[in-house]
Structures are given as C-alpha cells and as structure tokens.
C-alpha cells in the first residue's frame, strides 16, 4: 500500500516567486490499484509524481511506500521501491548503450552493481523473450544501440525496463505524450497489459481524459495542488469524457474550463 499524507511542496521557497505546487495532498493507493491522474497544467500532477519518485522533496507531509518511509529518500534510495517511465523516452533509456545493455541496467534497479558480467546467456534469453512479446521485432536487435530506435520503440523498451525488476510502485509520467497517436495507443495498450500481467500498483499521469478513463480502475483529478475529485468502481465506469469535463468545471468552482489546456484526446 502507498499512502501520501498532507503532502506539500513549494517551489522557490522563501523568494518572491514562491509558488505552491502541492497544497495538501492525501492519497491512499491499495496494492494492485492502477490510478490515473488528470488535471490542467500546474495542477501538481508532475510534482506529485516527482515527489513519489524522490526527485522533489516534500516541505510537509509524508509518503509511505509499502510501509517503508522513503519521504526523505533520493531517487536512488527509492529505486528499489519505485520504477518510472519518463515522458521523454530519451531520459528513460540510454542511447549510447545497446538494447540489451539498457535492459540489463534496468534489471538491476535498486541492487548492487559489481564486476560480474552484465549479460549472461540466461539474461539474453529472458530479454529476447520479453522483447518478442512487444511484437515490434526488437528481439532480433538486442545488439543495436538504443539511439537507433524511434521514440515509440524506445518508450516501449522504457516500459519493459521499468517492469523488469520487482517494485512496489510504477510511475508513468505522461509517457505517451511525446509519441504520435498510433504509437501512443500501442504504448498505452502495452502499459495496460504489463500492469495487469504483473499485478502492478501504478500511477499514471495523463493529459488525455479519454486515456484517464480507459486505463486503470481509479481516476484522481488534481487542481491547484489538491485532489479535487477521486472516483473509482461503478461510479467511474458510468463516466465519459464530457462528464469528467463537467466535474472538472464544478471542482474549480463553476469556472469555464479552458479546453485548450485539457487535451480531450
């Protein structure tokens, strides 16, 4: 179980430019739950994800992941608990390493790295099998440099890398936003498949309301650094995109929703 309690994050603290990124966020995620997070720009989606990953430190509150308190931990210290897929596939994968080397690097996430060979025959066979399951023909390209692949291919591998080593929480940071619609849909399908197969606990930030409802089993809406709407179960399955948009307007106190800022996707 993951619990975020009273999380508060300020940017440029103590300066004239001080802004509240997270006002006060309480969120409890049960094991195996797949949450989608929506909200307009500046709502605090990315800050919440970065706080969970350890890249942003909380100014108040706690984050508990599987009963370990990593509130103060760095991304490195949290790597054994949290896996992450970045928005930009170039951040999540290393272009100078080959596909199999990227996978080998990820397979040891959060564990000690010594002088033993990174790639055994056993590891290669495993990687080939996992790559074959993607259906992209990458299983015959283990020795290719990551830099040779397209953004979509790299993001699919990024997803695979995130799910190679055991974790308590998978963070997906608008990981289809940088891809063209067709590739994005493929990566999203792959995400659903991997989360379901491995029974992962996942939090996905998205700009697309359609994706937010189509994936996972619970949707959380952030606005102004707070959770303004949280829906799951039967209530959620009745929702469609216009409903969500209306709810979003209500949550903001009847303000007209600026549709440009919320990609309907």
């Amino acid at each position, binding site marked *: 179980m993951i619990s975020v309690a009273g999380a508060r994050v300020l940017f440029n603290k103590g300066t004239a430019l001080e802004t509240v990124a997270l006002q006060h966020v309480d969120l409890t995620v049960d094991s195996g739950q797949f949450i989608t997070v929506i909200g307009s720009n500046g709502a605090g989606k990315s800050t919440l994800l970065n706080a969970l*990953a350890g890249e942003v430190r909380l100014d108040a509150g706690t984050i508990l992941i599987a009963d370990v308190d990593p509130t103060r931990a*760095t*991304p*490195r210290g949290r*790597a*054994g608990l949290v896996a*992450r897929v*970045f928005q930009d596939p*170039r*951040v*999540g*994968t*290393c*272009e*100078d*390493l080959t596909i199999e*080397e990227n996978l*080998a*690097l*990820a397979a*040891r*996430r*959060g*564990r000690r*790295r*010594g*002088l*033993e*060979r*990174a*790639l055994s025959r056993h590891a290669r066979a495993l990687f080939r099998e996992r790559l074959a399951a993607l259906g992209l023909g990458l299983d015959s390209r283990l020795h290719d*440099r990551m830099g040779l692949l397209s953004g979509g291919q790299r993001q699919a591998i990024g997803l695979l890398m995130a799910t190679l080593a055991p974790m308590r929480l998978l963070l997906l940071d608008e990981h289809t936003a940088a891809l063209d619609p067709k590739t994005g849909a493929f990566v999203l399908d792959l995400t659903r498949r991997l989360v379901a197969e491995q029974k992962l606990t996942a939090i996905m930030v998205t700009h697309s309301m359609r994706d937010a409802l189509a994936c996972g089993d619970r949707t959380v809406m952030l606005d102004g650094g707070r959770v303004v709407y949280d829906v799951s179960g039967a209530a959620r399955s009745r929702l469609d995109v216009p409903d969500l948009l209306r709810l979003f307007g209500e949550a903001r106190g009847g303000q007209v929703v600026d549709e440009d800022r919320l990609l309907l996707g």
Partner: protein
Amino acid sequence: MNLFSLLGAIEVGFLFGIAALGVYLSFRVLNFPDITVDGSFTLGGAVAATLIVAGVDPVTATVAAALAGAAAGVVTAALAVYLRILHLFAGILTMIALYSINLRIMGAPNLSLLGRITLFSFTDHLPWPSYQVMPVLFLILAVLFKLLVDRLLVSNLGLALRATGANPRMVAAQGGDTRYLTLFGMAVSNGLVGLAGALWTQDQGNADVTMGVGLVVVGLAAVILGEGLTGGRGIARGTLGCLLGSLVYRLVVAMALDSDVLGLKSQDLNLVTAVLVVVAMVVAERRGRLTLFRSGAR
C-alpha cells in the same frame, strides 16, 4: 625512418596507448573532460622512481604508482561532483597541485633509475636486444589492459559507468549513484595513466617533473585518431582505437620529425601534436561522427 626508430615508435605508441585508455574512460565513457592526467602521469613516474630508488621492488612500486594516480583522479572527481567545480577547472587545479606534490615526492625535479632494478631489467638477460623486446612487451601489456577495460565496461558496474556519462538522470532512476560512479571511473582512468607514467619512467630510466606535460593532448589525439580508424562505436572498438590511435600518432610524429623535407626537429614535437589533433578533430567533425564534448542529456 629506419628500423630502430620504427620499433621505438611502436614501443612508445603502445605504452602511451595505456594512458590513452585512461583518457578514453574520462573523456568518452564518463563524458568528463579531465586534464588531471598531465599530473597523474608524472605522479605515477615520481612514485615509482622514488620507491625504486628507496629499494622497493619494482612490481610494488608500479602498483603504488597506479594507486597514486587513482587517488589523483578521485580528488578531481570529488572537486567536480561534491564541490561543483567545473570539470575542466577541477582537473587543472589537481594538475597544478600535483606539480608541487611531485616535486615533494621526488625531492628534486628529476630522479635517475640508472643501475636500479626496474620492471624491465630482465630484458637485459634475454637473447634479443632490448629495442626489439620492448615493443613486443608493451604490445602485450597494452592489449592486456585493453581487455581488462573492456571487461570492466561490460560488467553491471561498467554499464552504470557508461550510462552515467550519457544519461545521469536515468542512472539515478535505476538506483545508481552517479557521484560514486564518477569517482570510481575517474580513479580507474587516472590509475591507468599513473601506471603508464610508472612504465614510462622505468622504460626511460628516469622520472622528470615535466614528463606529463601535454599528455592529455597526446591521449586525446590517440582516442580521436582511433575512433577515425575503428569507427568508434562500441566499447571493444573504442579501446582498440586507443591503442591503434596511439600507435599511428607515434608513427606520424616519428615520420614528421624524421623527414628532411619538412625540416622539423624534436623540439617541434608539441607543435606537431597540436596540429595533428586539430586536423583529426576537424576531420572527425566533418564526418559528422564525433565531437569532443557530446551534447545531450546533461
């Protein structure tokens, strides 16, 4: 060029190939432009010579020299990583500090190993002349260290090292400590350079406080020439390039200094080196393959 100077160039080429492996690790693998090597090469020579003169056996002296070089690398990396001093400047600081330290270690600007037992004393008892034995010996040593570096870079630690240079944020997300990795990589890099300094000192029979001047340029020349020769991509090719590049560099320099047409003398060595590096870098740039400092995720 006669056989004697050809074999001499091969001998020196492979010896400096070991130092080039160190330069490759910092500049290429870690993406850390490290100038410390000028100082750590001399440090290796100074430590080895001082210990040998003091009666320490040459193997221990050489190992100590490599460790001293590694320590210098750690200092530079710590300046850059923990104190956030610009990489280039961190290296320059360590390098000038080492100038004083090297003088302290040797107690004089130079130290002769005349009549001392060195790593290479055994070649006197072989049936072949030393100028024929040494190139072979350094070929074997250079290849040995190339293979060791290759092996390091395909280990789990090595993958993290390579990714640290290319994409540190990814390494952190995968649980790697980029600071520690940088320190470790710089230790290995400067350790190799210190080792090369110790071998050079024992080969030449003396250590001199200026022996490392320009080593970073010589090392880079080897790395860049090597990338041009081998195609650059991949670890095994990259390290092979270091050795071949160093060899070609020495042969070109020997030919340039040897040719009567050009009228160059041995004091023109550094000028020839600088021109050669500029040419190699421009050619590499034009071919769109390699630049000195990679841009990208940093």
